[in-house]
């Protein structure tokens, strides 16, 4: 009944996306209790950072736009949270970011010693001036950061990619070659901008922000499809998933696990158990299994 994922057992295929709620052990635990198979922490950075001024997150109806700006206490200033997490009874994925290969490596090494189940490197965030995204659009830099981090950690490494890459399959392959154990795709789309015409200015304080939620699902599905073609390591498919049917679609594109972020807004914090149950019901009513439908959309090619 459990789901194996790089040597660990998860209670189902749903994953909490990084940056959604994951701000403390207590809330991660609650998300787990509400049916989530694997919870991801808010991305942890090399320095304390407040993130951007508000407005930082705006609902657009078909999805949302955000430029939270990678707030983080900084990896060195989270001792209490690490201490609390030590006694956890659920698997945790620690997301990290940095502004250089050296920073990624420094944060990763420190975090790895704190014993998360996985480390996810966010090489895909569009919402800060220098962090992350550049690594995710270039095959060489993606390779460099993954292999540098891989050397210093002793938990599995997940590389989180951006849809802004011209050939995301190629980037994923570079990550796999550099030692990544899984791919997580996608981070937010865009960036986009929403201008308020009465105020005559962008609504987000950072002006631009990443798009998420239902409207980005087609981009996410295409990215997972491309990545599945390019790599053999498992994929966490993420972007616009709100229902069991969305999750099935992502699995047919090639995902092994399905991440959920914005849908917490649309269906509540128990969206995880809802999606997991809807997936099960769909498989049952179609008399099929994960194994049979995994990557099924590739068959006719």
């Amino acid at each position, binding site marked *: 009944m459990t789901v194996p994922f790089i040597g660990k057992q998860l209670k189902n295929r749903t994953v909490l996306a990084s*940056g*959604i*709620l*994951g*701000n*403390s052990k*207590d*809330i991660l*635990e*609650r998300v787990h209790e509400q049916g989530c198979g694997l919870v991801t922490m*808010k991305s942890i950075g090399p320095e*304390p*950072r*407040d*993130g951007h*001024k*508000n*407005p*930082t*997150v*705006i*609902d*657009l*109806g*078909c999805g*949302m736009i*955000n430029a*939270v700006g990678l*707030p*983080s*206490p*900084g990896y060195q*200033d*989270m001792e*209490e*949270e690490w201490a609390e997490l030590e006694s956890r009874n659920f698997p945790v994925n620690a997301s990290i970011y940095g502004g250089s290969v050296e920073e990624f490596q420094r944060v990763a090494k420190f975090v790895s010693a704190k014993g998360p189940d996985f480390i996810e490197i966010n090489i895909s965030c569009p919402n800060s001036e220098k962090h992350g995204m550049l690594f995710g659009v270039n095959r060489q830099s993606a390779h460099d950061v993954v292999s540098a981090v891989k050397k210093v950690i002793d938990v599995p490494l997940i590389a989180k990619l951006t849809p802004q890459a011209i050939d995301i399959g190629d980037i994923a392959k570079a990550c796999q070659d550099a030692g990544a154990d899984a791919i997580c795709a996608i981070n937010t789309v865009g960036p986009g901008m*929403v201008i*308020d015409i*009465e*105020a005559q*200015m962008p*609504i987000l*304080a950072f002006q631009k922000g990443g798009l998420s939620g*239902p409207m980005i699902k087609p981009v996410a599905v295409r990215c997972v499809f491309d990545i599945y073609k390019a790599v053999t390591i498992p994929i966490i498919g993420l972007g616009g998933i*709100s*229902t069991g049917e969305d999750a099935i679609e992502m699995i047919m594109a090639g995902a092994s696990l399905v991440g959920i*972020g*914005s849908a*917490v*807004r*649309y*269906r509540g*914090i128990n969206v995880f158990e809802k999606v997991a149950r809807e997936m099960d019901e769909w498989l049952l009513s179609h008399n099929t299994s994960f194994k049979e439908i995994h990557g099924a959309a590739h068959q006719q090619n």
Partner: protein
Amino acid sequence: MEIKSQQKPLMLRVEKKIMESKEFATLFFKYPLPFIPGQFVMVWIPGFDEKPYTISFHDQDGFAITIEAKGLFSKKAITLDKGEIVGIRGPFGNGFTIHQNKRVAVVAGGCGMAPLAPLVETLDQETIFIQGARTKEFILFPDRFKFEPQYCTDDGSFGHKGFVTDLLKASISSKKNIDIVYTCGPEIMMHKVFEICEASKIPCQVSLERYMRCGFGVCGACVCGKEIVCKDGPVFESQTLRNMKDFNTKALLKSGKAVDLPDYFSWRCK
């Protein structure tokens, strides 16, 4: 799937401003917002910042927020004049659960009067209504209600000199049968109110404050223990408060760092 209606800021002009005192202002807007007492809106001053404010007045045609000038944002907000434009998102969160026919006590401290005012206006039954402020000048909404509040001030410039909790305790010991207590004010005050209620086995509803970003339960900025203040709250009941280990102890800074409450408030208020 129940996708909610678009929640971009609704741009509204300040219809009227009332300076309640030199540090408190109430801004009125003309827009028929759906509303339950205790809910809040995110208020955007274009080019500046966006912060949560409770709805302090509501009728068919409009609503108002009442702001205490504390830091950068609120000091700017009380300078807004009639005709100036702000963005409103919401209302968000769960408000108070209103019990008609129960014997109610309402305990407000300072700007904590804001969410409680529309609540008091919905009550028909006799109500114990305690309002505290720093000095006489800071007493909010005198003459607004059909119930006369019992007042207290820190300096004794009006009503009882001392704390709202003194008056609450007195009420509980003199008049029996308070069925429910609603409170809003400084967290340390609310915690004391909660302890008094627990000791007397009176259910209590408190309205909490935390730093907020999204306002709708996604970003995690406002988490307090296992609760999401913007979504599960801001109003919480005794049952939840008992298990909420961060109540009156911890809060997250903008960076997400959890700190002791005095550190959080000194960050906020400096």
